[in-house]
């Protein structure tokens, strides 16, 4: 998903002055991309909506500090990504993620018959298969894949956002792609 959301300068100036109408206009312009980013990184729509709310609370509170360097969407996206990562860390405290991932991963391998009807074309994974496979990854893996491959963040940027090393980001990406490949392979075999 590529987003080139251009917002008029005048709207940003009004938002920075605390004008509620302008702030709402910003919210309307970015609610879907922020929510979608959060949903790809997290597991549930509820978590993604909470991240959407937290992100905009910070946006409206700190828009005065936004000096117009770089794109507004880049600035908001970074806030959203770091809010989502914060929530992932909180979720990790609550659940042992790897166990979860392994058990649901196995389900997918055996869930073949149900969604081979989704119309996969040989060799090219149908969208539904990839989306389902992607959802089986851990939140951390999904975040790394999404931020790197879709949003175009570098491993250095991801490492900084996550408070991890560059090699952590790289190995997460490799592991995630290896899993995706295996899962999509299993789908193909069940066909």
């Amino acid at each position: 998903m590529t987003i080139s959301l251009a917002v008029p300068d005048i709207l940003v100036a009004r938002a920075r002055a605390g004008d509620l109408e302008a702030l709402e206009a910003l919210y309307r312009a970015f609610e879907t991309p922020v929510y979608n980013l959060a949903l790809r990184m997290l597991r549930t729509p509820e978590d993604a909506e909470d991240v959407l709310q937290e992100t905009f609370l910070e946006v409206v509170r700190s828009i005065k500090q936004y000096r117009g360097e770089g794109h507004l969407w880049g600035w908001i996206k970074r806030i959203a990504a770091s809010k989502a990562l914060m929530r992932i860390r909180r979720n990790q405290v609550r659940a042992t993620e790897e166990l979860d991932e392994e058990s649901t991963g196995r389900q997918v391998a055996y869930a073949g018959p149900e969604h081979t009807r989704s119309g996969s074309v040989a060799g090219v994974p149908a969208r539904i298969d990839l989306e389902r496979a992607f959802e089986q990854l851990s939140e951390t893996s999904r975040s790394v894949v999404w931020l790197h491959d879709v949003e175009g963040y570098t491993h250095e940027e991801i490492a900084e956002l996550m408070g991890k090393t560059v090699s952590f980001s790289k190995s997460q990406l490799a592991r995630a792609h290896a899993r995706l490949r295996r899962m999509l392979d299993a789908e193909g075999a069940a066909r």
Partner: protein
Amino acid sequence: MMHCTMDDLLALKENEASAWAKQHFETCPACRAELEALYQRIAALKALPVHRPARDRWPAVRDALRVDQRRRRRRWGAWSLSAAAGIALLLLIRPGPGGRVDAAELERMKQQSATLEAELERYDPDARVTSGRTAALAAALEDRIAVIDGELAQVGTPPAPVRRAELMKLWQERVDAMQQLMTVHVTRAAYVGL
């Protein structure tokens, strides 16, 4: 035969693969197919549909923002009040040479400042503004007043060496900034016919 690992493939994609991986890749159709599949997966990820939130979270954000704004306005009022109290105290303690005139002048400026502040209260900062320029100007003036208040509070702290001229200058600046802010609001009000 040993093939490229996923790490190798990703490194090839980023153009930072090892010499071995590069060489192997040149001659191995299986690995070339793997890299092509990797590119396809990434392209497919980028093409996934965009999901929209089911609920509107703006009301929650707006309500929290309103609470913030009310709190900030209260703090602003308390801040200038404490600065004024600090100065009144200083005038009591240190009536310098020619102090009576200065004190009267300061008192007059403080009064003016308080009157302006009360006037400004009548203009609801939450109300919509007509242009970004006006809003930005008002915000800049409000910021400046806050900065002046901060300086006044510093100058007004008893242990700090007090320079009466500096104090006078700051209060004068505060009054000026408030007058400008007033002008901005009045102009806007006239323009929108309030």
